[in-house]
Every structure is written in C-alpha cells, then in structure tokens.
C-alpha cells in the first residue's frame, strides 16, 4: 500500500478516525493491527520476519535487564545482532554475496558451487532492522529502559507511517509516545495533513515526473549525449530528494495526525555548503544512526587523522551497502566517505583561502553550495547507474562529448513548475529559520486557503497518478 495511492488514504482515513474515536488506552492495539495489516497487504508471509525481529529484540531487551554480567550482556547483544543481521543478509545481501563470490572464483579459475537463493526483498527490512538494533544496543548501553509491554514494543517496530522507509526512530523517542498517547489536537491534525499534502506534491508532481526522463535516459545511457546525461543526473538528484523527502513528509504528517512526533529526516540538503553539512541535512535518521552506532564505536573523531579518515570511510562504505546490495551503492558510499575525508582534511586551508580573498559571505556560500551539489551529483551517478560501465560512461560522456540535449517539452514543463515551487518554499524556509509556518499563519485566511487549493489542484492536474513506488522502498 503506497502513500501515493487512494488505497492508502482510505486506509489512513479509517485508522485516523478510529484512533480519534477510541479510548487512548486501546490506541496501541488499533495501530498495531493496522500496521501489520499495512505490511501484510504487501506480502503476508514476510510479516513473520517483522514478528521475528520484534520477538528477538523484545526478548533480548528483557534478558538484558535480568543480568548485570558484562559477558552475558554482550552475548545477548550478539544474539540480537546475529538474528537481525542474519535475516538482513539472507534476504537482502545473499544474492549479491553469491554473485560476487561466483565472479571472484571465476576470475581466479576456481569453482564455486554454492546454490543461489531466490527470495523477494522484504519491504522496509533495512529500516526496521536498524530500528530494532538501535533499541537493543541502547538497552545494552544502559541508555534505554527495556520495554515491558510486548504490544508497545511491537508497535514501536511496526508503526506503519514509518515502517517501510523510515525515519528510523529511536526507542527513546517513540516508545514514550506509544505508552502515553497524546490527546487528539486540532492543530496537530491540521499541520499533519498539510505536511502530508506537501509530501504528496513532492512525490507525484516532481519526483515521478522527473523519473520519466531519468529512467528513459539512464535506462539506455549510450544512446544519449553528455548534456542529456548531465541533465538526467541533475534531475535524478531532485527526483530522489523529492521522492524520499516526500515520503518522509507524508510519514511525519500522518504520524502527527495519529498523535506521534517523528524525527525530521531532511533539512533542505541541496542548500548545504559542504559535504559534512549535506550529511547533517540528508536522511538525518540514517546519518545519525550511522554516527551513533557505527562511526563513534569505531573511534569517531578520536585518534590520529588517519584513523578518523578510516572511520569515515568504513562508515560511509557500509552506509552505501545499506542502501542496496550492489557494488555501485558501495562506490556511492565510498565517494561520500572520500568527500567527507577531504572536506575534513582541507577545512582549515579552505577557510583561510576564503578569508584571504575577502569574498563576501553570500558569494562564498553560493560557490560552496554549487560545488557541494556537484560532488553529490557525481556520487548520484553511481547510485543511479545500473552498472559501473554505465556510470563511467555517463561521466566520460558528460566530460568529453556534451553534444545536444534531448528536451521532452512536456516533462520539462512539469518539472519547471514543480521545482520552482519547491525551491521557492525551501528558500523561504531557509530565510525563516527552517520553517515557513509563521509566514503562512501570517497570511490572510483567503490567501492561505487559495494556496492549499492550488496545491491540491497542482497534484490533481500535474501529478503522475500511476502510484509509482518510492525509491527507498527497495532498500
């Protein structure tokens, strides 16, 4: 059930009505049933994996409280890691591992007889696995009290607005909201729906329109000129942003209507002035997860510069692999690791350079923004291309044979309208300290209403209505 389908909105409307009507003490049960129904609409049998992850981490959490022995606690944590990562490996990475091994053994002339495994990737497995792992690690570290109520914990793992593509919530944030549900608030319902509407606009008007061009070009890269490939890469940068942030907005907005606050996942990432800033703004729930549960345990910023760069690189390589079982994703992560390491290594000299030239701040930030955007786009080439050969072809073509540009007037028209609205809103958000809510509330009611009507009509008139899957569902 995709957020951009009528099915979902009918389902959500029913659930939200019941949530508002039912006594608060039953809310968790209703939401748990709704969440499992939501997941089982995709594939009923894979709900068992969700259940397995829930029971294992609930049990590990409980077991961790029953012992103070460091060794036992480590063993319990190891069980959680083994089960969760084992399931993730089997369902997401086995084929990739198998093919890589077969390729490697083939290269060295050895035989490789391990059977292939043909399984469907469970939707959202990377997200809920990281969410449950975070819980168990936090309990093991003593920063999170274990949840006693299995139902509450099961809802924490399966809460439908963020189940299949995040934000990856921390137990310390979501569990208290499940235990003590909020009273329904008019303002929350209103702002939640408004945010969801904005997310839907980003998804169906911008991302899905861009995908028509991007899929066509990246589906057959050798048939296109460098300039067309460059435009397709820029388009992909906005497609994936609007697709994923659109999803996140709908998740956060619908959760808000149901009485829950989810963490912000995006903060206008293409306004970032350097790559470190970009990662503070892009997929925040994942980047903070990687920081807290991988980068810092690896040593983080501590130690010699070489160790820090190694930590950065390992974190980003694994972050790339988290996205998808393909070497191109690893390369994407590796490039970001490299950008982060170089950014860190050159920070002082760059600051000094800007100071020496006396460039006004606004120009400096603009230049840095453009550079950062292009570094991100270069990495997107590997993320989007179906193979290294395609990725290298795209880069070579952009550099060496720009040629003409393929213009699909209709798609370009839709994209121009969509991006103009997006960038205007984001520029206003930047000027308003991250939100345009005060600006909106300051407008006369007829203007506000006209704005919302325009947004709805834009979705109806310009949106792609085929119910295209969200890109991050495949991760």
């Amino acid at each position: 059930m995709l957020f951009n389908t009528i099915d979902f909105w009918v389902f959500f409307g029913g659930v939200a009505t019941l949530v508002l009507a039912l006594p608060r003490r039953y809310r968790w049960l209703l939401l748990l049933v709704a969440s499992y129904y939501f997941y089982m609409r995709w594939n009923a049998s894979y709900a068992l994996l969700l259940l397995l992850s829930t029971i294992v981490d609930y049990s590990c959490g409980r077991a961790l409280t029953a012992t103070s022995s460091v060794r036992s606690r480590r063993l319990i944590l190891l069980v959680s890691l083994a089960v969760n990562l084992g399931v993730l490996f089997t369902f997401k990475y086995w084929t990739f591992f198998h093919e890589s091994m077969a390729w490697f053994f083939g290269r060295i002339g050895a035989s490789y007889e391990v059977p292939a495994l043909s399984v469907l990737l469970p939707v959202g497995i990377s997200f809920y696995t990281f969410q449950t792992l975070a819980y168990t690690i936090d309990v093991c570290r003593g920063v999170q009290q274990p949840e006693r109520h299995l139902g509450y914990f099961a809802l924490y793992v399966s809460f439908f607005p963020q189940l299949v593509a995040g934000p990856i919530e921390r137990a310390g944030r979501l569990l208290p909201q499940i235990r003590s549900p909020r009273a329904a608030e008019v303002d929350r319902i209103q702002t939640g729906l408004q945010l969801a509407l904005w997310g839907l606009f980003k998804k169906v008007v911008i991302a899905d329109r861009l995908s028509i061009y991007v899929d066509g070009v990246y589906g057959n890269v050798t048939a296109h000129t460098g300039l067309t490939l460059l435009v397709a890469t820029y388009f992909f940068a906005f497609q994936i942003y609007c697709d994923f942030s659109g999803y996140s907005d709908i998740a956060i907005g619908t959760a808000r209507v149901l009485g829950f606050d989810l963490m912000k996942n995006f903060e206008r990432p293409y306004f970032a002035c350097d790559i470190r800033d970009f990662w503070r703004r892009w997929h925040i729930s994942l980047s903070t997860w990687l920081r807290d549960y991988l980068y810092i345990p690896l040593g983080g910023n501590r130690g010699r510069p070489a160790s820090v760069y190694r930590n950065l690189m390992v974190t980003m390589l694994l972050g790339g692999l988290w996205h998808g079982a393909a070497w191109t994703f690893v390369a994407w992560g590796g490039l970001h690791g490299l950008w982060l390491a170089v950014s860190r290594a050159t920070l002082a000299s760059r600051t000094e350079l800007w100071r020496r030239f006396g460039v006004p701040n606004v120009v400096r930030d603009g230049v840095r923004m453009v550079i950062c955007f292009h570094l991100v786009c270069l990495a997107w080439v590997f993320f989007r291309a179906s193979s290294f050969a395609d990725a290298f072809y795209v880069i070579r073509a952009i550099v060496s044979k720009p040629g003409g540009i393929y213009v699909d007037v209709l798609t370009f028209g839709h994209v121009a309208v969509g991006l103009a609205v997006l960038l205007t809103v984001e520029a206003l958000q930047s000027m308003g300290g991250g939100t345009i809510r005060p600006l909106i509330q300051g407008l006369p009611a007829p203007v506000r209403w006209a704005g919302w009507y325009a947004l709805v009509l834009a979705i109806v008139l310009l949106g792609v209505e085929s119910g295209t899957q969200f890109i991050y569902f495949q991760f």
Partner: protein
Amino acid sequence: MSTPSNGTENPLRFVLTAVIFVGGLFLVDRGVATLLDFAFSFTTTGEGSGQANSALANRDRDVVFFGSSRARQQFDPQVVHDEIGLSAYNAGANGQGLYYARLLERLMLGRGSSARYFVLQVDEQEVFGVTPARVGFLRPFAREEPLVGRVWAEADPYGLVKLRASGTYRYNSVFLSMMWNLLRHREADEDGFVPRDAPARENVQVAAEPSPRGTGSAHLPSHESRELIQEFVLDARRSGIRTLLVSAPTFVEATTGDGVPPESLPEREAWATLAEWARDLDIPYLSINQVTYPVFARQDLYLDSVHLNVEGAEILSRIVARELAAMEAGERAAPAQPQETP
C-alpha cells in the same frame, strides 16, 4: 473516549472549517474545470491535448484513419484524395492502441460522423494483448462519452471515482500540454498526416513501451483485442461506415531467403489472426508485409523496423487507396491478400 482538544481552537469549529474547506475545494475544482473545458475546446494541436479535437473536427471526411504512429506517419490523406478522389483525415496518434482508437471512434460517431470508411491500422503486438495506454489523453471527453470513463477504470481501479469526484482530474497530465499548445497558436495539421524522413527523436519513455514483437510468451490472440475490433466494426457499421483493417509493414531482417519472414515469426501469427477476425466480421483486411508486398523487403523504405520513411509511406498510402477504391467499386467483400506491388 478521547476528545479532540486544543487550547486555542474548538474542535467543532475545526470540523466545520474542514467541511467548508472541502466544500470550497469542490467548488474551486468545478470552476477551474469549466475554465479548462473552455480552453480545451480551442486547442487543436498537441499529442496529449488538442490533437483529438482536430480529429473530431474532421470526422466528416470520407475516409478516417485510426492507429498508432504507424498510421499517423504512414497514411497520407493527400495520396488517397489524388488516387481516388475521396477526402481523408489521419486521426492516428503516437501510441494510439485499440482502446484509444475505439474511444475516438465512439466520440466521432457520437457527434454524428458522416465518414464512409474507417481505416483501422492494428499493430501486431496488439493482437496478443492490449492496454488502455494513453487513453488518459481522452479523459477530457469523459463527460461526453461514458465509455471513456469505463475504459479508464480498467487502467485505474479508482478511475471512475476520480472522474466523478473531480472535474479537473480529466485534465491530469494534459493541462500543461494544453496550455502550451493553446498559447503557441500553431495551426492544426490539415489532414493529420505527419510524414517523417529521419528517425524520430524517440521519446525517452520508449524503452517502457511494449515490444513490436508482442508481449505474450505463447503469442495467444487476445480476446480483448478481438472484442475491441468487433465493437469498432459493428458500431461503424450501424452508422453506415465501412471498416478496412490494415496491418502496416514491419521490416524483418531474419528471413528464410527471398525476403520472406520465417513462419514462426510472431508477426505472421498476428497477420493470420487478423485475417481470421476480418473474415468473421466480414470486412476486408489488408495485410501489408514482405510476403504480400515484396517491395517492403527494401530496408531503405524504413526509418526503423516499424516506421516507413516518406517514400515508403507513399507506397503504403497508394496500396490503401487502391483497396478503398476496390471497396468503393464493391469489389471487396472479403479479406484481401493482394500480391501485386503498386
């Protein structure tokens, strides 16, 4: 029971506001839809918008061609006029499948077309399976022709609900194209024919389009396709219009010798099936291919494997014109399999 509460707002007031908002949205939607209907009626160009208006405006020509780009780029009404003196209009459109053609026909008949012949070009892959692709371009006519809505509902389970709930929804994905073509003030093609002498700048979506070699693994004829063709023919017949079924040439490189495509070729199955359907419906069928017209074994007549260049289109148009002349003279009552090359 939990009650919606807010320190500053009354929940009842919120519900009332929500109702007023939705009511206002309904009115705005209807108002905008009326404006769009008005604008659309002046749009005569654009694949995704006014092209259908042009076709409907020319519904009274003696001959009207239907079909995909293989009709639009290959049937020259001028040649038909020069050959047999009948006025003609090419209502083909890129991606116009059987559903699209059927709906366009219904709209023409609904407006009282006085045409004498409908020429329906069927792409081979459509014999094995049809989808309501691009039928969305005809949604602006959903109120005029209920069949548009019913067909759209096959492409989208909520299609009818959306069409009923929103007036502007009929212009989804058509809106910008419509405005663009309206503002450009480009004259509509006089006869709908769009000859090509160079390969078209392919739409980047082309990779997602069905293969001309058919999509069915076993190449089983589609019951749905047959029904669509039957309804097309019978509806036309009820209005006194005769139908000519045509399959335009496909260049087949892998031949058994002498330019003859192998028996196992899916296209050959499609041609045989179309011939059978035409026989059942008692209409002529013009199967134009390398077997029936060896001239089309010449690769230089093609822009790609399924589209002819200007020279190829002229040859094809002459063949069709002569078939129409034969129909006019009452010589063709049964499916034709001509062997001669004009």
